[in-house]
């Protein structure tokens, strides 16, 4: 039995909020400490000011405590406990303690509902009930009015009493009564018949409603069926639409592929161009070096020649060719560095005029060294120009690009020819090309940058 009591006791104490958990093993052996603690705690719950005397040290103290607790519970809670069992502090003591705990627990559970109702009554919101107050006022005035009315009626009571007694004392006429009863009976039967009829009507209307319902249901079913069939029908042009969609998708794929190819090719093209430009530049530089070398050699050779006093005609030719060179070369460089359209114009003027003249002269001539020299001069001008034009970015538009490329190829040919040192035609050609390529150069810088970016 102790198992159930102990379980109930520990549950009750848990509900009451006892700070320690009571183990199911705790009262297997007499456990005075726990009994004392529970007693003190329960006593404090019953009577907050009560402090149980006695203690745990000696028998007398324990007895004193049990008796004090018994007296307290008896007086405050009308509970009779068995002191002997309580003193034993074992499973039986639990049963005694359980009485107190159950009392407290029921107390905890029952008034809870009352309290909540009282709370609700106390804390109502006045503002939301103004309507009710008005209603109550109207009711109270009505009550007084009714009271006054009642008073008036009561005042008439003496007269009415007389009349009533008169009416009561009148002898009863059986036939008249019977007639009146019959009338009443008829009225009632008529009412009953009317009621029956109404009931029948109800049944009829019910049937009508049912029929209506049935009809509606049938309609619904039909409509659903139609919906299904309509859903099943494939809309017109659906096949065409899907086919077109497929086609568009294919076309789009093609387009994307081609677009990507074009872009990739563009990119490769720009790469190629820049690579070629670099190669050309290097070659030009090499040629320049060679030319300078030849020039210096020639000058040295001429100095020695003049010392040896050559033919005056040659000298004259030389002097005719020489003067333009120092004058034009720095000028062209300078102008190209400033990079204006005018510079280009002037260069073209120079190129076509001076170089042609010199070429003509040279062609008339037959001395080898002079040809070399003039050649070198032309190249000095031409090389510088071509280098600049190459260093300048590529033209922006694609339509020009191929032409430019051809130029480039020619130029390279020309340069190679020049390196060999005797192809005058090609060199002049290159010069001409240069002039033709020039107009596009000034516009090219900015757009070429974007080209490189690509």
């Amino acid at each position, binding site marked *: *039995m102790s198992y159930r009591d102990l379980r109930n006791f520990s549950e009750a104490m848990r509900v009451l909020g006892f700070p320690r958990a009571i183990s199911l*093993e705790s009262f297997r052996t007499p456990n005075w400490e726990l009994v004392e603690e529970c007693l003190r705690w329960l006593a404090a719950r019953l009577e907050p000011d009560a402090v149980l005397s006695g203690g745990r040290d000696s028998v007398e103290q324990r007895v004193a405590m049990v008796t004090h607790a018994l007296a307290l519970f008896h007086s405050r809670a009308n509970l009779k406990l068995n002191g002997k069992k309580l003193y034993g502090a074992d499973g039986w003591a639990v049963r005694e303690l359980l009485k107190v705990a159950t009392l407290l627990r029921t107390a905890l559970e029952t008034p809870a509902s009352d309290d909540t109702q009282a709370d609700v009554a106390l804390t109502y919101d006045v503002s939301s009930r103004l309507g009710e107050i008005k209603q109550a006022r109207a009711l109270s005035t009505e009550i007084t009015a009714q009271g006054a009315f009642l008073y008036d009626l009561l005042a008439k009571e003496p007269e009415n009493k007389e009349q009533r007694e008169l009416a009561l004392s009148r002898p009863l006429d059986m036939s008249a009564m019977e007639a009146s009863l019959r009338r009443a009976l008829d009225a009632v039967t008529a009412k009953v018949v009317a009621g029956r009829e109404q009931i029948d009507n109800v049944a009829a209307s019910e049937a009508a409603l049912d029929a209506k319902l049935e009809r509606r249901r049938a309609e619904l079913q039909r409509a659903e069926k139609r919906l299904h069939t309509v859903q099943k029908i494939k809309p017109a042009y659906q096949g065409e639409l899907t086919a077109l969609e497929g086609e568009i998708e294919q076309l789009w794929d093609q387009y994307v592929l081609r677009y990507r190819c074009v872009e990739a090719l563009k990119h490769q093209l720009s790469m190629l161009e820049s690579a070629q430009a670099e190669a050309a530049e290097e070659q030009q530089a090499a040629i320049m070096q060679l030319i300078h070398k030849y020039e210096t050699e020639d000058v040295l050779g001429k100095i020695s020649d003049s010392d040896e006093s050559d033919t005056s005609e040659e000298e004259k030719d030389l002097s005719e060719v020489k003067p333009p060179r120092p004058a034009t070369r720095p000028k062209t460089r300078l102008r190209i560095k400033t990079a204006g359209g005018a510079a280009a114009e002037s260069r073209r003027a120079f190129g076509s005029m001076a170089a042609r003249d010199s070429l003509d002269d040279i062609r008339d001539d037959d001395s080898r060294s002079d040809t070399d020299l003039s050649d070198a001069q032309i190249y000095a001008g031409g090389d510088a120009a071509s280098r600049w034009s190459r260093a300048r970015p590529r033209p922006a538009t694609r339509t020009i690009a191929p032409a430019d490329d051809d130029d480039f190829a020619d130029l390279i040919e020309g340069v190679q020819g020049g390196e060999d040192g005797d192809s005058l035609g090609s060199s002049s050609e290159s010069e001409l090309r240069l002039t033709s390529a020039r107009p596009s150069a000034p516009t090219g810088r900015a757009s070429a940058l974007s080209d490189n970016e690509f």
Partner: protein
Amino acid sequence: MTVATFPDEFYPTGMHLFPKTNVSGTKHQHDVILISTADGKFHIVNHNGRIEKSVNAHQGACLTSQWSPDGAGLLTAGEDGFVKVWSRNGLLRSTLVQSDVPCFDAVWSPDNGAILYTRENFLIIKQLNSSSKITKWKAHEGLILRVAWNANNNLIISGAEDGFCKIWDTFGQQIAVSVKHDQPITSLSWSPAGDMFIIGSYSLIRLCNPNGWSHCLDRPPTGSIYDIAWSSDGTQLAAACANGHVLFAHIIDREYTWKNFACTQIGRKVISIKDIVTEQSDKLDYPDRVIQIALGFNHLVIATVKQCFIHKLTSWNTPVTFDLKDGTISMILLSERCLCVIERAGLSVYSYMGRLLASPRMGVRPETLGRAAVSLGPDALAVIDQGDRKCSYDLMHVFDLPTGLVVRSSTDNPVTKLTHKMTVSVIALCQTGPVSERQLALLDYNRYLYVVTVKESKPKFVKLGSQILSITWSSETELLVGLRASSVVAWCCPRAASQPDWLALTTVSKEVTDLGRNPTVLSVEDGVVRICRGNGSVLHLSIAVFPEKLLKHIASNRWQAALQLCRTVEDETLWACLAVLAWQYNQLEVAEEAFALIHQYHQVCYIQHLRSNVPERLTMN
């Protein structure tokens, strides 16, 4: 409705319903209730409330009583410290334990061979047949009040007055500890499937995962919860409360996802389904409460108490419906072409049109089958037969399912029986491929992974690896994914296992840290693995995206596409997969290139020899 009222001095301490077994001839014994009372007796009460037998069992209170799982006997434990075993009719068979401290709880082991009982703060497992084998361990700091032992995962939970709830295995090793509760744990219960358990304490009820973490917590104002019982389908539970109330609860908020669909149970009878791509969502209402949900293979299958609803995910408003044989459905498995419903009455396989395809029979009690013991392929069903636990080998049945439109009677489904020399814990059937090459992966008790081709005349168990915790086949290809303690392994061509070096080449492994305890692979889709970690979080891990794509190409016989993929990705594993598969499918040209790229030159030479010597039509057939 009151069935019976017992006299006032009848104070029950525990009740247990007779276990429903499929043993014929004991039908009259069903619905018999065993009640233990505080006066030391136990009573056998029939279904209309008449006390059939009362036996004086213990001095003091009889604290617990339980039928054995096979229904052959019962045990009682009392305040006097005795644990006794009785026959079904209430005759004393033996007194197993005698001690001087009360035994607060005692339970049967799932196989009837042992009992687990509490003794103060110790848990003790005692074998019935040999008295020497006793496993005893100190489990808690306080007095142990409740224990429970689950048949499916063979785990033990214990709850004590110190406020802890602990999970143990049968060797007494601690698996998990709950958080500390303020009040003693007064009740515990495993769900029948073992996928969750519930803890009751003072005004507290908590649903937990077998890994120890908590699903949810509620604090009903009921006082201590003294006892909790699950419904046999594992979706409802009833709790006895100290203030005299009975609390009913229903498991909701179960969530399932598949590709772009997610469905959640939001009420007892309501399921919400959502298509994440099109933002379409809907609420599906059912006439009865929903027991099982399965989502996958373009279908949503819902089992209620009486019926089963099959929704197509393309039009989920018009389900196919069929009636269930028995109300207690424990599992639904899906595959590409059919679904398998596991009820207490047996296993049945239906098509997605709701037609019964087969109902295979075997000697196993269907409700004891766990998720790992059954596997459904598109045209086969494999089941582990645990009937003979004492033997050191395990039998597996593989049933062929009718695939055509011809309905055969359910008896002539050919069965293949496979025998493995160890206890098999997990099986999984491959989800694709022709019937004749159906592969079965299995994990045995030592955590070794084997693959076997079912239809071979002499099935050969090929070992793939060891220390594998969980396995899953990809739902669309022959990709097998396994989980090690700290890594995920994908076997791209399990058939390559016959050649160890090929196996090594076609295996992809990825290190994953902090998987936690007991992680599982949920699914594999397009090379992305979903792993449920020990703490319940789901990890998405991309491990074999390209191999899976390659396998798909090969499955649809697009060798050029496969080659192109390999050339683009330039991965050795991929080339190895291609090589092995091309070799198997006799695509010698492809195989030659692939073998050359994975440096298997002897194989290249061999193929060249074949191609030069053997006529073309022989190699290409």
